[in-house]
């Protein structure tokens, strides 16, 4: 309808606009796909070489037995936080602005966690035995060590991935039903199967709403726990710069921070290319801007705490480690991080910045860079200057691990680009919830 843009859209508009995003894509899209696929090929080539010739292909050494792989692993896990946070916590808090972005965010979460999930495999010296970490029954009664943070990771991340996926699928069912009813031929048949025969009867809605609420209730502590557990990979170790009780909240906040940055990086182009301004409105951008600003400020607070505690500890080795980080070889990385995570977001204090897609986009990219370097700074310099002066050393990335880190982004974007063409990237149902329902005589209406 003509006045659809000026006033708020009708239910029918919603269906039409959302379904339009699934129409055959243009050349730009395919160009991107090819580029991403190319990078991905390089990613797998590098990985194959590493498996064949050994971990030495990556720049790891003593003392940096961990380096960019774990950095990127933690980075992607962090990205994976926004989705379920939006769909669970904001759902419970009835934050209405979430509805138009949560589908994309959830997809992002799942893909990010999948990408992250690759890294423990890439990182393991004998990845063909990685299944040793799973508690599977075996005749020799060998079991994993449940005291190891890495085993906690296995449980935390696999749980998080499963629950996020379930959440995602449950949210999709009514929309797929809409797809089914809008499509014909073989598509209809596929969608009929995926829709599980959903027809929006009152009984179905009743259980659906209840289940969704309960899932949200379960996922809420999960979101907070996952990155806490990941942070314990470091906090449970002795390494100066790791061994800190601060890490759990510190990591969770950082995760949300980077997660929202990534959401913006994905949503803004969609908004632009699919012309979804009616649904992703300035108030949405504004809300996300605020969230990034707040988490950024909290993060700054944590950085200060980190420095303060290691100074206040009076621990010679802790202080030496900190001093080295700030001044020596990797100082540039540290200062990059401080700028991207502490300074750059401050621009969002201005509403104009919060509502300007360009500014938001730039800030988001800076935030992602900053957050990657945060993990880098936690891992590489801390190990490089720890307890034992004999083995102090500098880590240099090799072509292999550089290629793999870059490739992981292509893996993620390949999945996401595929998703926005196959599934409704806005929730039809929930978007309808945000617009006033059609009423005949305004008297009764709201």
């Amino acid at each position, binding site marked *: 309808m003509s006045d659809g843009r000026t006033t708020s859209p009708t239910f029918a508009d919603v269906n039409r606009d959302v379904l339009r995003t699934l129409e055959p894509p243009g050349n730009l899209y395919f160009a991107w796909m090819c580029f991403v696929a190319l990078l991905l090929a390089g990613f797998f080539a590098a990985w194959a070489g590493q498996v064949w010739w050994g971990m*030495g292909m990556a720049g790891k050494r003593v003392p940096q037995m961990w380096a960019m792989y774990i950095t990127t692993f933690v980075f992607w896990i962090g990205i994976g936080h926004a989705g379920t946070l939006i769909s669970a916590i904001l759902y419970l808090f009835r934050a209405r602005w979430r509805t138009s972005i949560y589908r994309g965010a959830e997809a992002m979460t799942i893909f990010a966690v999948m990408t992250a999930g690759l890294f423990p495999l890439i990182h393991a010296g004998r990845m063909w035995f990685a299944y040793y970490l799973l508690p599977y029954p075996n005749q020799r009664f060998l079991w994993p060590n449940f005291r190891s943070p890495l085993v906690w990771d296995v449980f935390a991340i696999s749980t998080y991935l499963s629950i996020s996926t379930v959440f995602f699928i449950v949210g999709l069912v009514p929309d797929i039903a809409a797809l089914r009813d809008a499509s014909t031929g073989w598509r209809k048949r596929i969608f009929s199967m995926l829709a599980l025969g959903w027809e929006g009867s009152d009984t179905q809605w009743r259980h659906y709403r209840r289940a969704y609420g309960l899932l949200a209730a379960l996922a809420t502590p999960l979101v907070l726990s996952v990155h806490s557990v990941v942070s314990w990979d470091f906090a449970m*170790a002795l390494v100066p710069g790791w061994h800190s009780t601060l890490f759990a909240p510190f990591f969770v906040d950082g995760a949300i921070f980077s997660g929202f940055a990534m959401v913006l990086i994905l949503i803004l182009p969609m908004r632009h290319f699919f012309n979804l301004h009616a649904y992703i409105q300035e108030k949405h951008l504004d809300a996300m801007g605020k969230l990034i600003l707040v988490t950024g400020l909290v993060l700054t607070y944590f950085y200060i705490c980190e420095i303060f505690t290691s100074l206040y500890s009076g621990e010679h080795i802790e202080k030496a480690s900190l001093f080295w980080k700030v001044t020596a070889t990797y100082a540039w990385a540290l200062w990059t991080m401080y700028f991207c995570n502490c300074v750059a977001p401050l621009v969002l204090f201005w509403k104009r910045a919060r509502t300007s897609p360009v500014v938001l986009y730039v800030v988001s990219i800076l935030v992602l860079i900053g957050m990657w370097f945060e993990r880098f700074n936690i891992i590489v310099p801390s190990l490089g200057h720890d*307890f034992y002066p004999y083995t102090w050393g500098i880590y240099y990335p090799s072509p292999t691990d550089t290629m793999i880190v870059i490739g992981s982004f292509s893996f993620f974007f390949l999945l996401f680009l595929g998703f926005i063409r196959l599934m409704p990237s806005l929730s039809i149902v929930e978007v309808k919830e945000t617009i006033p329902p059609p009423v005949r005589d305004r008297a009764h209406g709201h």
Partner: protein
Amino acid sequence: MNRRDFFKIVTVSGAAAASGGCQQASETILPLVVPNEQLVPGVASWFSTVCRECPAGCGVIARNREGRVVKLEGNPDHPVNAGALCMRGQAALQGLYHPDRIAGPMVREGGAGFKAAAWDAASKIVADKIAALRTSGKGRAIAVVTQLENGNLGGLLDRWVQALGTRPRVTLEPFAYESIRAANKITFNRDAIPYYAFEDAEAVLSFGADFIETWLSNVNYARTFARMHSFRDGRAGTFIHVEPRQSLTASNADEWVRNAPGTEGLLALAILRVMVDEGMADRRFGEAVASVDVKRAADESGVSVETIKRVAKTFAHAKPGLAIGGGVSVTGTNATQTQIAINLLNAAAGNVGKTVRFGADSAYGKVTPYSEVANLAGAMAGGEIEVLILGPGVNPAFTLPSGLKLADAIRKVALVASFANVPDQTSELAHVVLPGTHWLESWGDYSPRDGVLGFLQPTMSPVRDSRPMGDTLLRIGRAALGAEEGKGPIPWPTFEQYLKAAWAPLVKGELEGALRRGGVFGDVAPATVSAKVSGGEVAPPKLAGDGGGLTLLAYPSLRFYDGRSAVSSWLQEAPDTMTQAVWDAWVEISTDTARKLGVAQGDMIAVKSPQGTLELPAYISPTLHPSAVAIPMGHRYTPYQRPRYVAADPRSLNPMDILPAAADSTSGGLAFMSVKVTLTKLGTRRPLAVLQATHDQDDRELAQHVELGAAREQALRGRGPEAAAPTLYEDQKYPGPRWGMTIDVDACVGCQACVVSCQAENNVPVVGKASAAYGRQLHWLRLERWAEGKPEHPTNMFLPMLCQHCEVAPCEPVCPVYAAYRTEEGLNGQVYNRCVGTRYCGNNCPYHVRRFNWFQYEFPTPLEVQLNPDVTVRQLGVMEKCTMCLQRIIAGKDRARDEKRAVRDGDILTACQQTCPTQAITFGNLKDEGSGATKLTHSPRAYHVLEEIGTRPSITYLRKVVRGGHA
């Protein structure tokens, strides 16, 4: 090596074992279906022999498993080394199984390279040539050069030489200490090198003698030095070392006196002068030092008068003391004068007969003087020599100064026959190569000092088709003489028979026993000598080259001796303790030389002398005397190491290339300190692979020390009450023994023998220069040097660092699959099969002693034959670390069980402990209050590295005891 070779070795040496190893290496192959009763699979047999890696002649017992030698250990019964072995001895296996070992006899084809030949054909060439020369009466045109062979091989060769009327045999040892002999001839009228009884001295005053590295008999003297010096129940001797460079030996001194190169003699006389003046020495020595002006000596040597006086007092008051001289800066043209001055010191302090003992004289006294080597070189250059026979182990083209032009001289010889079994710079020049057997495959005997005769016997059959030099020469000799076996002047069919005949009177039918013991060890009556007071002036050394240049100190390397041990990749990768550098050679320059040149470590420098130029990366040393430049000798690579382990770089690493052929004016001995060099910066870089990031502990007290006085006090009072670290958790229970170790930092001299021994025992691969430089070396045990005090004059502490087997191990709980866990006997186990390679343990180990298999490391054929069958060879992608020689623990427990008793000290010796010359390492059961290890853990000097972390290590260190408040 392929399966057939392997079985050949197995079966042949099976036979060898059967007759106590008396089986000449031959191609006869017994089928394994007839097992040999002495060859019990899984049970090692031990053969005792003598180490021939250097003339020190330490006793060795070789561990033979399934017919192949897998490990060498010192022979505990041998008087020289008493069970210990240095890193070169440990690494001899790499020479035995060397990938480049010459496969069989070779003959040079015209200008082209070598071509394999049959034994008879190859030896016929030599025999015919010799015969021809004899018939034309030119026997003098035949020269025989061997390494120091003072046993029956030498005897046989001399008979051979007589029989064929050739030139007298020349024994070639680059380090012959002729100045000591000459000085002794002058002062004590005895042309010999005595036995120095460190163990009986209260104070040792060394003028550059690097007795912990190479001087005379490093294992023997490191061992006895520890007896004299290391802190034991309140007593500890003093050690003062005078050297322009802080060598490993210098850094073990309680006081290191840095002097200008070549002024050692002056200092010795000045000290003697002080002793005489202050009535600490007999007046009659006054005449010798009448002309000596202490002040002048102080100025020229750069050592303060106070220091000279202090040293004089310490030395004179020691009852007895010991003054020794050696090392590169005492090999100038004034070497003998210096040694005479040192002799006078000993005489004046009344040490002669006490700590300087003639009688049991060193084998070095029997080396052919360098002057004759020079003559031979001249004769060759003059075309007088037509046949040159080079025994195994001699490599004059590499080990002698290029000033001698020996390589060119050898090229003039019509027929050069080499008995080398690994190609080297000299065998390159040969026309016929008749590979001699490695000493581990040979019969023979060697007398390191009078009264001690060590027996060599084959410990396995030859790895390659090689024959004992004696046998080949006998054949050649007879062929040349036209006599058949059993007749003529050299009737013996093989050297072995000659040897057995010669042994018969010594062993009195007890051959088996003597072989098992390792030889015939007696004592000779001490010879009493009287000192003739003479000499008394030391001229400054004559130095060729640019007067404004820096004095070149080309010093013998602990790792490679004169270069004959450089074939071993283990030694190439075992760091030089002072620099912690591996693989490459370097030029050590002082800090202000570096400032003047504007070079940083690793910058290439051209070292120019009249003889030529040598290009090496710089190592900047704050301790080196500003007027000196130091380059280690013996650095060379063998073909298989390039480019496998180091980038192929044809340039020489050998300081001999820029040395003139100078000689000591008195003794005529080879002078190594003989030239001044000029340095120029090249602008290119070749970074050194230095394993230790810093020598500064950054106040972390990894290596700790205590002042002598305090140590004495504590020793009397004993250890205070132990404050157990508070814990929430109940302690672990140990049903059986709990293994532990103590390492005495005071006793450790940093010789690296333990590092190589560990590598040999535990199948630790070699990774090469690039990987090592990038922190990927795999040593389970590393030897750290920590420096304290003034950078130009630091006190060094040596800290052997290995898995600490912590009771509360940070590495264990982080492993997701229990690959790292705590055993019931107090070890940190590492299950390779279970390891997934997350490397979390490696991060979390505060000591960083865990090693990761970054690649699938190879053992180039036939080195894999050396692998210890009791130790897993680790796969790519798994973590590994010190196991405290678990395989030895198991063996020891089994032995105890078979003898129905509890394990006691001595049943289990870890590889590092076994080879340690100073017995700094003690392993034992910490639950047994009687065990040595337990006693030491209760010592007042005991501490744990990084104790504050609360890892509760099973390895206890004992603080170094420092004198005079150093550091």
